């Protein structure tokens, strides 16, 4: 039996060894360039900093690999030899949750990137740092770079007037149309109203081609739906969309007509962003609402202004005055547990600098930095950009509520019911779902 115990003991020894080794693994790899710092380490560096030169480590969570500057902060670290930047990629879809959890466990990054409609949640959980003074300092010291950012850049990173960071990249959804299909159907001009969109769509739909490509599934947050809603003059109260309004009824009726008149694909209710985009890019669909960042891919398949065109979204007849161009942004927010707000500010300034933003915007998402938007290089790479310069200045953020995800679920319910029941009364539907939304937020 003693032997048994020896066997057992050696197993435990092995287990301990494994634990030891793997800890060693992480700690040794921590000395390499791009690695996370865990809290213990930042603490030790803090202790050291009082004695020697300030050695600062910052951890940044990017929502996509593509948002990381091309030089991976090389220039930044050269200019600020005492600051070391660690970048990790936490997908935007998970970043909010991960950040909340990490903050509770003191394992949070200094800067996190989340979708702009989640800024509110993080702010109300009191996890973000009020950057008012730091931003004022920025404006004072370097007003050029500060003023290059449109107001939206600050709005999307704020909650109830308090700024928590900066939004460098924001993507609007624009209306796109296929000129060849338009011609075949006897149209040449981009529609001005959503009524015309339906009319042209019906003319294009012939069983082979579809008039309007749309996302009908619940795979994503209903940002395409809300963007259309806002272009139709849809209103929000305290961040809550008002479906039981003219615009609300109109958009539900719009989806009903898409499905009922076969203007969109029969499978639209199962379509995700990908199907929707592919239908337009492959020339199957006549019209769609597509994010600016997809335009380069469209351009690979067709030629702008010859085969396809784009414009800010049409309006609803009667809703012209309330129409708005919605953008979804991906702000960089500052954790309130950061110990180096000064260094964080420098990092934010670097991320917003025209030079850095230009590289990212050229290959990825558009930006809130106007210097980049009007940069010759940008205008050359994105032939459509010039047509949208004015619209970019008018972008508004998607209003949000702390119960955003619950509201989204109801909106998806409403959208899907509209697609499934083209003949039922849109007004009743709007009332029904508004009631559900109001119940959530009361």
């Amino acid at each position, binding site marked *: 039996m003693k032997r*048994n115990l020896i066997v057992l003991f050696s197993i435990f020894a092995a287990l301990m060894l494994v634990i030891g080794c793997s800890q060693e693994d992480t700690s040794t790899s921590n000395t390499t360039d791009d690695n996370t710092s865990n809290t213990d380490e930042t603490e030790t560096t803090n202790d050291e900093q009082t004695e020697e030169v300030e050695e600062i480590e910052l951890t940044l969570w990017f929502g996509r690999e593509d948002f990381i500057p091309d030089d991976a902060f090389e220039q930044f670290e050269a200019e600020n030899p005492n600051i070391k930047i660690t970048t990790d990629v936490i997908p935007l879809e998970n970043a909010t949750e991960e950040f909340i959890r990490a903050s509770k466990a003191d394992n949070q990054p200094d800067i996190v990137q989340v979708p702009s409609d989640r800024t509110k949640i993080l702010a109300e*959980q009191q996890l973000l740092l009020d950057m008012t003074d730091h931003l004022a300092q920025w404006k004072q010291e370097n007003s050029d770079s500060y003023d290059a950012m449109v107001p939206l850049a600050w709005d999307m990173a704020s909650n109830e007037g308090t700024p928590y960071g900066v939004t460098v990249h924001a993507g609007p959804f624009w209306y796109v149309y296929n000129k060849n299909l338009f011609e075949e159907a006897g149209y040449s001009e981009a529609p001005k109203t959503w009524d015309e969109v339906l009319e042209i769509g019906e003319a294009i739909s012939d069983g082979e081609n579809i008039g309007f490509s749309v996302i009908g599934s619940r795979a994503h947050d209903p940002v395409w739906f809300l963007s259309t809603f806002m272009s139709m003059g849809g209103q929000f109260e305290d961040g809550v969309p008002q479906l039981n309004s003219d615009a609300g009824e109109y958009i539900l009726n719009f989806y009903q007509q898409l499905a009922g008149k076969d203007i969109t694909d*029969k499978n639209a209710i199962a379509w995700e962003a990908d199907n929707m985009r592919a239908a337009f890019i492959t020339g199957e669909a006549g019209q769609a609402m597509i994010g600016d960042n997809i335009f380069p891919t469209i351009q690979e398949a067709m030629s702008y202004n010859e085969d396809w065109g784009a414009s800010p979204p049409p309006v609803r007849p009667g809703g012209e005055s309330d129409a708005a161009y919605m953008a979804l942004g991906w702000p960089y927010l500052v954790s309130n547990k950061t110990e180096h707000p000064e260094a964080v500010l420098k990092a934010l300034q670097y991320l917003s600098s025209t030079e850095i933003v230009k590289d990212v915007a050229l290959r990825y998402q558009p930006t809130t930095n106007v210097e980049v938007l009007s940069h010759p290089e940008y205008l050359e790479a994105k032939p459509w950009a010039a047509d949208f310069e004015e619209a970019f200045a008018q972008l508004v953020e998607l209003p949000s509520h*702390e119960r955003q995800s619950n509201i989204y679920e109801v909106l998806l319910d409403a959208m899907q019911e509209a*697609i499934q029941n083209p003949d039922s009364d849109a007004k009743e539907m709007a009332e029904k779902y508004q009631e559900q939304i109001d119940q959530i937020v009361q």
Partner: protein
Amino acid sequence: MDFSYKQLKKKSVPYVLLIPSMLFVIGVLGYGVIYGVVISLFEVNVYSLETPFVGLKNYIYIFQDPTFLNSLYKSLIFVFMSVVVGIILSLVFAIALYKLTIMKSFFKGLTLIPYLISGIAAATMFKFLFAGDVGMVNQFLSVFGMEEVLWLADEWLALFVIILANIWFVTPFAILILLAGLQGIDEQIFEAAKIDGASKLRIVFQIIIPLISSMIGVSLIWLSFASFNMFDIILPLTGGGPGRSTEVLAVYLYKLAFNDLNYSMASAVMIVIMTLNLAVSFVYLKVFKV
């Protein structure tokens, strides 16, 4: 060394042997369950800062919530169909494999392949099998002049598709368990039955099934557990839609925990799923005397 010490030592052997496995199971999984039970009695979510003790309020809430009740209903259909079709399919395949005379090990090996594939990969496969007019299934049907079927756009067909995908994913293991049962049967019983002139169907129903009833029980438990907890195939495949037609409990739980960040409610749903699993396995244990 006195007698009682020796005896104590001897008695302690099984416990000592179990220490490592129990450390892992209780330390990791048991901890998770207890944490879940505790949190389900509080109100921990992302839209309030306080986390008050609320007792059974979360449970009362979900049982009045139509979304939850819909999920429960869909879950029961999903699990019932998966288990019934799954066990019949497994039994048929297991008997065929058992009766196979050549290439037996090749096909036995082939059977387990779906089980080794990750959920995301399996979901992607099924998505493109059934997706609109691109899907292979519809292209296949069109060869026979049949019209395009809107597999994922119809509420019941979508449910059918996720049941099919689930069965594909979880039955391999059940097939092998049943095969194990079959191979444990004494060949002489079959010979005797044949001499008695029993028909093939009678052999299956009156001899094979009763003899492997405990294996059937184990397979049923396996199939129901796996089906109740399945979300990694459904979520990428349908996202719970169209409507909420494929939003089974595990998907509902996932959305609560990862989209709404409503941890307490998610834990309450977890406890409900656990209870259902326990109840189901209890029934199987009684019926099949596993």
